[in-house]
């Protein structure tokens, strides 16, 4: 019997950061660069996003960080308020009770609207009860989708974009809402777009440009999202293949698949025990219903066709 400690699989750790400063109450204006339709598309129809000065905020430490640039903390008292900040962009005060997001202390006005769709919306959807996974996606067959899950920078978006170019429609990328139910699961994107690091973007979409140095290239996907959310048929977890000579997809235990889903899930307030439990249960339900695979391959664009073949091989027993 074993109790396998999964210590390397910790959630991102805290790191010290200065809390946002107090600010005077001020006026607000509209979300820059994004429309109401974008919020509806992202699943936040009925929410308002405004830009203004921060209300007075009680001092306190950040209670969560992604280990890189994004920080969160729940403000004391009622109604519920959660403060989110991403370095070099700004802060968002999320008030679920009145379905509002106040952007403040913006350092980059041009990126703020995109930040709401890319980073804030997935976390708010998670707060509202959805399981939102940081993953790439592709549709190998009509009405069927796969997820590509893995650490940032491991190549999931590059692989999803390559599969898209090879004729597999991409329902989206980066933030995917996975809903278990009916003995299976469905998947939809928070926003129908591919996001690629600049090296992958210039390789796969030479005409596209990043909004600013160091940022990802954003490729809007053509056409409307699928009318019905496709069925999730497999979950491919990247990692462990850095030294791989060949491309292979091997079945993954459901418990490991569950773990990968939880590790790569979005949360607005990751320290919230009730919602952490819900994510764990949802991930377990998805992992019980959808087969997972460990996908290992050399990090070489020229080998991506072989990766596609490995995925197809794994799907042979899944797509019926």
């Amino acid at each position, binding site marked *: 019997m074993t109790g*396998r400690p999964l210590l390397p699989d910790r959630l991102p750790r805290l790191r010290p950061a200065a809390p946002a400063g107090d600010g005077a109450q001020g006026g607000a204006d509209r979300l820059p660069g994004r429309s109401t339709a974008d919020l509806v598309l992202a699943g936040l129809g009925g929410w308002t996003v405004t830009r203004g000065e921060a209300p007075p905020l009680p001092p306190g430490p950040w209670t969560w960080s992604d280990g890189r640039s994004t920080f969160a903390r729940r403000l004391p008292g009622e109604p519920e308020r959660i403060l989110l900040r991403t370095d070099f962009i700004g802060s968002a005060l999320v008030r679920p009770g009145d379905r509002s997001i106040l952007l403040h202390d913006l350092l980059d006005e041009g990126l703020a609207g995109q930040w709401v769709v890319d980073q804030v919306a997935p976390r708010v959807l998670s707060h509202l009860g959805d399981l939102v996974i940081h993953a790439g996606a592709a549709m190998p067959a009509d009405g069927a989708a796969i997820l590509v899950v893995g650490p940032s920078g491991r190549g999931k978006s590059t692989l999803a974009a390559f599969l898209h170019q090879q004729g597999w429609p991409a329902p989206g990328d980066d933030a995917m809402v996975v809903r278990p139910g009916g003995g299976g699961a469905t998947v939809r994107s928070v926003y129908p777009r591919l996001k690629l690091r600049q090296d992958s973007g210039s390789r796969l979409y030479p005409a596209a440009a990043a909004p600013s140095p160091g940022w990802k290239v954003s490729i809007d996907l053509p056409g409307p999202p699928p009318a019905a959310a496709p069925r999730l048929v497999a979950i491919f977890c990247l990692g462990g293949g850095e030294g791989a000579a060949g491309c292979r997809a091997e079945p993954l235990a459901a418990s490991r698949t569950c773990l990968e889903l939880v590790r790569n899930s979005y949360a607005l307030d990751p320290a919230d025990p009730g919602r952490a439990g819900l994510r764990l249960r949802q991930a377990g339900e998805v992992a019980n219903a959808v087969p997972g695979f460990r996908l290992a391959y050399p990090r070489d664009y020229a080998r991506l066709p072989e990766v596609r073949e490995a995925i197809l091989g794994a799907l042979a027993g899944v797509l019926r």
Partner: protein
Amino acid sequence: MDDLFSRRLIPSPQALESAVGEETVLLHLGNDTYYGLDEVGTRIWTLLGEGAALPAIRDRLAEEYDADAATIEADMRRFLADLLAHGILVDA
């Protein structure tokens, strides 16, 4: 410290669980650590959650898996010490 098998251990209130296949994934909220239990570990976890005493769990496993009770107990001691060290189990 009393001998491990004379203690009454229960799952930590900080531990959340999700049954996945025949295994269990645990999350310890206090330290953001995930923990995976295999099939036998899951059985022990279930019996602990039902309030069973450790000697009773040992005897039950020996019967269910047709194994020697001394061997089961030795494995259980390692397993339980691991869970206690990570705060997954606590004294009642």
